[in-house]
């Protein structure tokens, strides 16, 4: 045994959980964004409990169906809060394909 664990059950690294727990695999419903409806208001990203939505920096004059948010599908758990809270009905929860 050349190495041992660090005493006190300490971890001298940060955020290692994200390397192993890809919580996107838990999903049974995918949030699917309708870009033509999304206005980039950021409400969904404010409420996502897993910090999985970022608003993209899109100019107001960009074409209507330009994506204005991006969902991190590697970690999104599919809770549906974003879809439920979106004032424009721009997110649909769709059953994941097997």
């Amino acid at each position: 045994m050349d190495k041992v664990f660090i005493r006190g059950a300490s971890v001298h690294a940060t955020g290692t959980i994200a390397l192993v727990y890809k919580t996107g695999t838990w999903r049974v419903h995918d949030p699917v964004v309708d870009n033509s409806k999304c206005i980039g208001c950021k409400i969904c990203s404010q409420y996502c409990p897993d910090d999985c939505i970022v608003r993209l920096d899109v100019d107001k004059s960009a074409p209507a169906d330009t994506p204005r948010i991006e969902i991190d599908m590697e970690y999104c758990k599919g809770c549906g809060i974003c879809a439920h809270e979106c004032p424009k009905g721009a997110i649909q929860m769709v059953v994941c394909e097997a």
Partner: protein
Amino acid sequence: MEMFLSGNQCIAHGAKLARVEVISAYPITPATPASEELYEMVTRGELDAEIVNAESELGAMGICAGAAAGGCRTFSCTCSQGFALMREMLWAASGMALPVVLALTSREIGIPQGLLSDHSDALSERDASYLQFFAEDGQEIIDSLIMAYKISEDGKVLLPSLVISEGHRMSHSFETVDVPEQEQVDKLLPKYNPKHVLVDPNYPITGGTPVMSQYPWFKMQQCQAMQDAKQVIKDVCKEYAEIFGRHYDLVEAYKTEDADVIMVSLGSTVGIIREKVDEYREKGIKVGLLKLRVFRPFPEDEVREALFNAKKVLVIERAPSPGSLYGIACIEVKAALQKSQAAISNIIVSGKDIDGEDIDEIFESWMSREDEFAEWYKMQYDERAATMSGYDTYQKLLNGEKVERELIEEGEGCLSKGCASCAGCLSFGAIRKFLSVFGKDTVAVLNGGCLGTCATLFPLTAWKIPSFFYTYSNAGATISGMEVAMKLKGIDAHLIEVAGDGAIFDIGLQTFSAALERGHRIIYLCYDNQAYMNTGIQSSGSTPYGARTKTAPKGKPIRVKNIAQIAAAHGDVYIATASPAYPDDLLKKAKKAKSLNKPSFIHVICPCPPGWEYDPALGVEIARLGVETGAVVLYEYENGEVTVNKVPKKRKPVEEYLMKQGRFSHLTKAQISQIQEEVDREFARLISGRL
């Protein structure tokens, strides 16, 4: 009657058959299902007992001790740090000669907190003057519990008992057991009717008086009672066998008479070894097994008789004793065998799930050796885990090399993705949001609960700032010590205790209160999901009236504790409530707490899909309804004055909030009106500026 039961269910059946009158337990994995089963038995009317929800294990044991002195047969179940927390009352109850019986589903004691089978919790209390019965299977759990009451309550004994099984390995595995008939148990076990301690206004006594020079007398009597218990155990076992046909004793010596080599063990491992002994015997090996069924009183004579002439003895056990080369059971076996020629070795299988192949491996290696050894079984080193835990960085640090670590920017968030919280967990949502106003100069202290367990599991951590996971009862004290040290070391950082409602309202209230009183500059962030969620939804001091939990199957019969009033009673504290439905308000309060040079208590009420029983998508809507109905009032309290931050134009009826949650679905109209009245009253008081 034959039934297919888990170990925890066996515990509940044993307690029920013993007709316990007072039960008090505190949730802890993996013992909780036993007390939950007892709640159900009481709710179904199968058991006529009072179940008292305690605020901690120390409280649970105190309730049992009080009730036992009051003349009732009492029961509790726990394990691990829960049992460790009971310690003061453990010694008090045995000192007062109170025959309380506890069931332990043994598990490692933290830190680090584990979830596997280890007997350190029970065996490290071997001197607390408790009879200790180690059960091998579910059948023995039931039988031992019934007998334990009979033995403990015997006038020659009058000491408490522990019936010990193994966490998860036994508590969560099912087997067919013969559950004794109540009528027959009643014949064996009459009502508890103490004469040495009793509550009777017509017969005043003083119990538990302090002593001076007589102390050794009382202690000696305790020791003597332990010795006398041996015969009582034998007698009760005999009587039990006559009624139920199952034979028990202090020890079980299996094929030891002519054995050259003998394995010694306790608990579930015994069953596996017994089968192996038969197998090895067929191969012509003269091997035997000694089962230590009773560890206190320690059956020295029986152990000596069974093992004395063996050439080799191997103690396989689950309790290391740091500072001794040997485990706790082995130390005792060695003491009993002082003059024997046997080579006595020891294998520690703490935290290991042992099967027949493991016994083969242990046995073969032992047979091939002549020396006396004490070793840990199969210590497989996980290189990947060590690397992931930053072992290389740590080495550099030790070598004095400069180590550059990645640090977060303010607004980036203190927790990474990948936390194991449920989909739609608004506790995590709120914690992430709150911490987003803090940067790298922030230290978090956590404890048991969903945050602790979903964000950390060696070598995994979601934390990007320094964080320390202390024990559940102690967040307020540990963080106080940290604040003092940081001041001394000139470290200028924000200190945040992130704790659940259980940790603040109940088990940790004492240290929370003391920390507030001392006025450390600490931010207490209470993510309040209104129950003990991590242990599977039991009531806390914050569970609202009427809400159904596992420990309130018909709805909680009492109102919540007003934690803000408690916090305010400590003087200059910034107090604020918040909701995940109002992120801007939450952020404003986080920033304010960050800017202040005094303690802050931020109380965020967080819906929890499994605990509140709703579709996760509706969490924010429910949180919003909480505020719109006034069930949750968002306010700040400073300088003796409440300011309500969100005043709904017209408050919605509270029923709209309640009916979205399954935990309230059973409420009657009358109960809903009662809740509405309470909400109206609370709201009126807060809006008038009073806490």
